[in-house]
């Protein structure tokens, strides 16, 4: 019987299709591995409700484990507790930065609805992944994927992606 750690090691070969520099274990979406007889069940939690990468990831989990000799693999979606970027380790965040994506900071305490609807709210400056300057601004809270926002560095005049804290 293989260990859970051995399975996780294999699953580390499955990269996030949108962020090929990090794998799904580092991303924090693999929640558990359970052995049921000959069957291996992998519990994953989605990042965002509509993230199209999830389907690809589920398929790749099955294919990767099959190629390592596990014939009966199922993937189960779990929703509780909801995924958060706080599950991404400091080392993984550093990988994102090297890749050119500003990594997520700690998730802020829950704001009330009243805090969310004020246009003059404080916006934290995100450090530019290229030059390290904090003289940056948010261009749009929505970017090329659900998990990223578009920022601009006034210091090195570069637009960059920010992996939103969520």
């Amino acid at each position, binding site marked *: 019987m293989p260990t859970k750690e051995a399975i996780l090691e294999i699953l580390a070969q499955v990269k996030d299709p949108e962020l090929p520099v990090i794998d799904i274990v580092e991303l924090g979406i693999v929640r558990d591995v359970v052995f049921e007889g000959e069957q291996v069940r992998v519990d994953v939690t989605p990042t965002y409700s509509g993230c199209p990468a999830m389907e690809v990831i589920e398929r790749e989990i099955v294919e990767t484990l099959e190629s390592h000799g596990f014939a009966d693999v199922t993937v189960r979606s779990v929703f*509780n507790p*909801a995924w958060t970027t706080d599950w991404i380790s400091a080392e993984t965040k550093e990988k994102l930065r090297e890749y050119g994506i500003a990594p997520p900071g700690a998730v802020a305490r829950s704001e009330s*609805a009243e805090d969310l609807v004020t246009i003059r709210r404080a916006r934290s400056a995100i450090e530019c992944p290229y030059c390290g300057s904090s003289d940056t601004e948010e261009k749009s809270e929505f970017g090329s994927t659900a998990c990223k926002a578009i920022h601009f560095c006034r210091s090195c005049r570069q637009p960059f992606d920010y992996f939103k804290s969520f």
Partner: protein
Amino acid sequence: MLGHRLSEWCGHGPILEEDIALANVSLDLIGQATLYLHLAGEVEAKGRNEDALAYFREAVEFRNVQMVELPKGDFAFTIVRQFFFDVYNYHLSEQLAKSSSVELAGIAAKGYKEARYHLRHSSEWVQRLGDGTEESHARAQKAVNDLWRFTGEMFMSDEVDQRLKTGGIGADLDAIRQKWSAIVGDVLTRATLSVPTDTFMLAGGRQGRHTEYLGHMLSEMQIVARSHPGAEW
């Protein structure tokens, strides 16, 4: 429904960032709907999955409120509707995240996190449009006035809603209404828009009585799945 309506902006947004933003929100809402419909299919236990429920039901079988099926209109209409919905969805998912149904609570907890930045986005735009130019103000006010009579339906509860609320599964729509009114009133005032007085409220969507627009929308939304039943992509 609303996710589909928002997707109609893809490639037509007023600026690139907004095109991307509306598509992102659309994707979140379609994702949330997929999860809720999947759960509904399991609870119903008649072998219908989320695709069967989305693509193979007739208009009269849909239970959405009428507000979300209305055509997308201009940008002001889309944003004001989104704002009205986002305030509602924020409070609804906040409550459902505490539901005694573990599955429902899990889906809602994720939806709640997403509703937070949806609300941030739409409320900012309501303030920019309302307190912007003469033209943007006029269009935003018209959207508020035209949409107002559709807002009441979100808070109407029937016997099923009451039972779900008593059982700790569903939400307290009266409590949500109070919070909704306070936030909406506050933001509209900040946006220099006037808050309409409550008069007649339209309803019926939750009983399958819809506006003429739903059928047209469904014919577009469902055509691929119905033309190629069982297809996978």
